């Protein structure tokens, strides 16, 4: 229990502390230190949960099970590595004069605040608090998106704010409906938002209300997941903010939003599948599959027309989130296992890609793909990092993304054989879209006036090594971990 509180306390404390610290250099290091502490705490928490099962805090306010604890650990981990990357990066930005020390203060404080909201959203047991912290995440990041104060960044931030705000509002309406239908079933009305309580009585909840609620929640949290056609804010926000922000947004925020959707789906499924009257019991799954597939294909096509490197990779994030949504919608242990694995490898790979992209943009002094050239010649570490990262995200073995996609395709083939063709077509299109832009950036001779920058490739190396490891062989404890999560979500395990 203390581990949990510490996990939440460190970033919260960090948020306040950073707001006071004026010396950027110190702040950068502190940022790393706090993230390390958070990671340690979350690791302890994970260990505890793995050993003696789910964990319900007194007052039922927090609930930690295999599903969210691994996301907690992942969040803390990526938070740390990104913090490591962000220190030299932001110092460089400061040197370039794109930010001043006041904004640096804001940046660091909000970085911790963002981590806090993420961890809170993951660990809470109360759907209302889940909503509150999701909104909090938006509030924490929106000012960072407009950190550079360029017209584009302000515009992006505004869109991000409005669209996510509206989406989140819809989610709140869905939550209210949930509460409403639960209140009828539960003795104590105040428990009506506790996930544990709801899950207990899910079978008795009214299917119609639940389905309406699910629609609101799906559209609401789906906006934050970035499902087409609710995705429009995502490429803007990811491309205009500082790169460490893009890394955590792509690597973490989307995961957490999807996590919320899945949690809700579990409830609604409980209601729908036990009811005898309701017309289509697989509504949730079908909706998610439809959204997922749509996002997957559309994002793949979008990749072909990108001019901004960060924008391109944010579209690839949409694509992969679509794939995961599809997989969760597909249901079944195999698909779910694959989706969980994909969540992990995607956030690892994608954040590492954004790290390299950050360095690349520093080398070329622009984000325009047309002006990033010959990275391998200019700075081999960055060039190869980008190349390998993209190869990994494109699903090439021996990287883990291949494994998860392999599982997803297998699962699809078993339940929906014809959708497999669509998936494969989408994969091919997305692949072509990524590489056609990647090639001229990494290959070719070194353009004049382009010099190496002081880059910290440690996060990239760590992430890629982890992904490689997951691709060659999944360690047993991790497999069991995923398996428990699968057990929770689908009711039957894989191992």
């Amino acid at each position, binding site marked *: 229990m203390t581990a949990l509180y510490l996990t939440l306390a460190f970033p919260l404390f960090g948020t306040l502390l950073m707001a006071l610290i004026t010396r950027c250099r110190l702040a950068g290091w502190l940022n790393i230190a706090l993230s390390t502490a958070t990671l340690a705490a979350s690791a302890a928490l994970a260990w505890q949960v793995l050993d003696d099962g789910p964990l319900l805090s007194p007052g039922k306010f927090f609930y930690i099970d295999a599903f969210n604890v691994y996301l907690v650990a992942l969040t803390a981990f990526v938070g740390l590595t990104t913090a490591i990357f962000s220190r030299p990066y932001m110092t460089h930005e400061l040197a370039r004069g794109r930010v001043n020390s006041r904004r640096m203060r804001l940046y660091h404080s909000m970085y911790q605040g963002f981590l806090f909201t993420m961890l809170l959203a993951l660990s809470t047991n109360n759907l209302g608090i889940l909503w509150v912290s999701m909104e909090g995440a938006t509030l924490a990041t929106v000012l960072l998106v407009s950190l550079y104060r360029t017209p584009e960044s302000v515009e992006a931030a505004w869109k991000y704010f*409005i669209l996510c705000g509206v989406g989140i509002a819809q989610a709140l309406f869905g939550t209210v409906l949930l509460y409403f239908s639960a209140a009828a079933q539960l003795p104590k009305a105040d428990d009506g938002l506790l996930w544990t309580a709801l899950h207990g009585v899910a079978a008795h909840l009214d299917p119609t209300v639940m389905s309406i609620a699910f629609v609101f929640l799906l559209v609401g949290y789906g906006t934050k997941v970035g499902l087409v056609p609710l995705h429009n804010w995502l490429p803007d926000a990811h491309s205009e903010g500082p790169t460490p922000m893009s890394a955590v947004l792509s690597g973490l925020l989307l995961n957490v939003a999807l996590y919320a959707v899945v949690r809700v789906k579990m409830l609604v499924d409980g209601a729908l599948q036990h009811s005898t009257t309701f017309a289509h019991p697989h509504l949730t799954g079908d909706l998610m599959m439809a959204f997922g597939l749509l996002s997957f294909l*559309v994002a793949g096509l979008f990749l072909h027309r990108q001019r901004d490197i960060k924008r391109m990779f944010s579209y690839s994030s949409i694509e992969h989130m679509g794939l995961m949504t599809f997989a969760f919608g597909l249901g079944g242990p195999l698909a779910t296992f694959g989706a969980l694995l994909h969540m992990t490898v995607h956030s690892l790979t994608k954040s590492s890609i954004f790290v390299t992209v950050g360095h690349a943009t520093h080398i070329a002094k622009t984000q325009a793909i047309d002006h990033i050239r010959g990275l391998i010649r200019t700075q081999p570490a960055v060039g190869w990092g980008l190349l390998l990262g993209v190869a990994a995200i494109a699903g*090439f073995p021996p990287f883990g993304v291949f494994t998860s996609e392999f599982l997803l395709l297998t699962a699809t083939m078993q339940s929906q054989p014809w959708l497999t063709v669509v998936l494969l077509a989408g994969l091919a299109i997305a692949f072509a879209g990524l590489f056609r832009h990647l090639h001229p950036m990494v290959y070719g001779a070194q353009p004049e006036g382009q010099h190496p920058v002081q880059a910290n490739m440690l996060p990239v190396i760590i992430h890629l090594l982890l992904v490689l490891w997951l691709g060659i062989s999944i360690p047993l404890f991790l497999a069991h971990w995923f398996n428990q999560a699968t057990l929770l979500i689908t009711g039957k395990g894989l191992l």
Partner: protein
Amino acid sequence: MVLQSAYLAVILALASAAVSLGANRFPALLKSFAFPLLGLSGFAAVGAGLGALVTATTSVARLPFGLPWLPWEVRIDPLAGFFLLLIGVVVVAVALYGPGYVREFQHERHPVAALGAFTGLFVAAMQLVVMADDAFLFMVAWELMSLASYFLVAFQHENAANRRAAFLYLLMAQIGGLAILLSYGVLATFAGSFAFEAMRHAHVPLLWSAVAFGLALFGFGMKAGLVPLHAWLPEAHPVAPSHISALMSGVMLKVAVYGFIRVTFDLIGTVQVSWGVIVLLVGSASALLGVLYAMQQSDLKRLLAYSSIENVGIIFIALGLSLVFLGAGQPLLASLGLIAALYHSLNHSLFKSLLFLGAGAVIQQTHEHSIEHMGGLLKRLPYTGIFFLIGCISIASLPPFNGFVSEWLTLQTALQGVVLQSGVLRIIIPVAAAMLALTGALAAMVFVKVYGVAFLGQPRTRRSRHARMPDIGMRAAQALLALLCLVLGVLPNLAINLMAAIPRTLRHLPEPGATAHGWLWLTPVAPQVASYSAPLVLLGLALAWLLSYLFLHGRRNRSIRRVPAWDCGFGPLSPRMQYTGAAFSMPIRRIFQPVWKVDERIERVTDDKGLRLTGLRHQLQIGDVSWSVLYEPIGRWVLIAARRVALLQSGNIRTYLAYSFFTLLFLLWLIT
């Protein structure tokens, strides 16, 4: 024992990859460690292969990698052993050749570390593909193979053409890989597992097995370069460093063939005659078109790449015959066809690697890629010249070299089509065989062109006039391969006896009695049907040569006078008077007009006043038709779709809000 040796091969290859990572800082590493390790890996592979073939045993193992419920299964049966052998031989040659060849790159400060590392990975991946016994490991190794070779293709990425080739290669490799994955998926759905062992015993309904077969043909055909899925091959093979081209053309295509054989003959239980016919037709088309395209190339390595398409086509003709006979219940002939296909795979990997290594030596010395700029090289590079000649004779399938034997076996198999019931097949098969004959004859013409233009006559450019001999290692590699070409041509029974176990262990086919009458006679079906004795042929040739030589030189005036060429009395010869490659292939270009996208124009160059004609400029571009009819349209469709989709991102926030709004309303309407 076999397994250990195979593991050793993989580990050594990986070790060589690891070692060469340091090559940028210590260039000596490559020469003194990386390539020797690669060579050892090759020897280990040969050992494993021979072991599996000689003992005709199947060894199985399970490695602690992969998914918890899907460990890596490894299995080496004679088929896998055969391909391990094939890989190993070429790898040994490449390891000999490498040090001398990459020195040039080191001089030009290319990052040779990447070269060495990915070469090692590439070899290891190919060995793993052959060893894999479950779809997951197979796919991992397969895609790793594609990825590593992709990096090698992109090695000299300074010029844009190479980048484009690499991109095209990776894209098509990816698509093919997905198709293969899908085909395995279909099989696994019925087998309930991704282990090959389960697939072998699964009962797949006819429709689905046909789907699986089609996907496998598509996927592996794309890798093997069957027309019209070949577009990447002539782009990618030439731009890689030559020893890599040798590996790609010589070995990687065979790995694709292996995959096809594994899936079709081994995993899919029942085989239909119609499949065989399809494979036969596709093979014939690839063979003919491949050689016709090769005919019109002037870039040496590009020409060789196209000829690889041709040879893969020949291999698939033999496979198609084998499938037809299998479906028609003629196991003996089926195994004969299989043997023919395997034999041609082995031969092609030998002489194609030989030719690519030779081409590499030539290009390294002359820095010319187009044969139109070479000429007279036989005098400058005598060894390479002779070995290259041997390669040309072999690939032109002329006796007494190895190419002829396998093509002869294929023809013999085809001739047995008479035993089939269906008259249609009895017509199709001989026509296909005639196409094969045409292909062979054209191939001979192609390589007369190559050798005649590049190695004979007079040097056409200064650089080819000053070419120098490559170093000993490079020559040794070519010598090894050339020797093997001759041995496999003269003692075919040796190789066939080695392969004899494969049809039996693969699907209990009877061994063909091709070698039933002793080492001297090759009798595919029966001595009274057809027989060929390569040793005696060689003996006869030697005898006749000797006699005529003695007969002529036993007399006086054995002296030979050297004079300027007569040339029907025209003036002194200049290199520019020689017949060019384009001119040489012109008749064929006119006869088979519609096969290419020919862009030929002749410009009249006049003096500044535009009155006097000072010269003619002849321009010739040979385009691949498959681009204009297949690939470019697809690309266009994708871009159009992307443009449509981009309208979503209109930039107006109210539109975005409207999306969200209407999505909500639509869903609400949907569920109530």
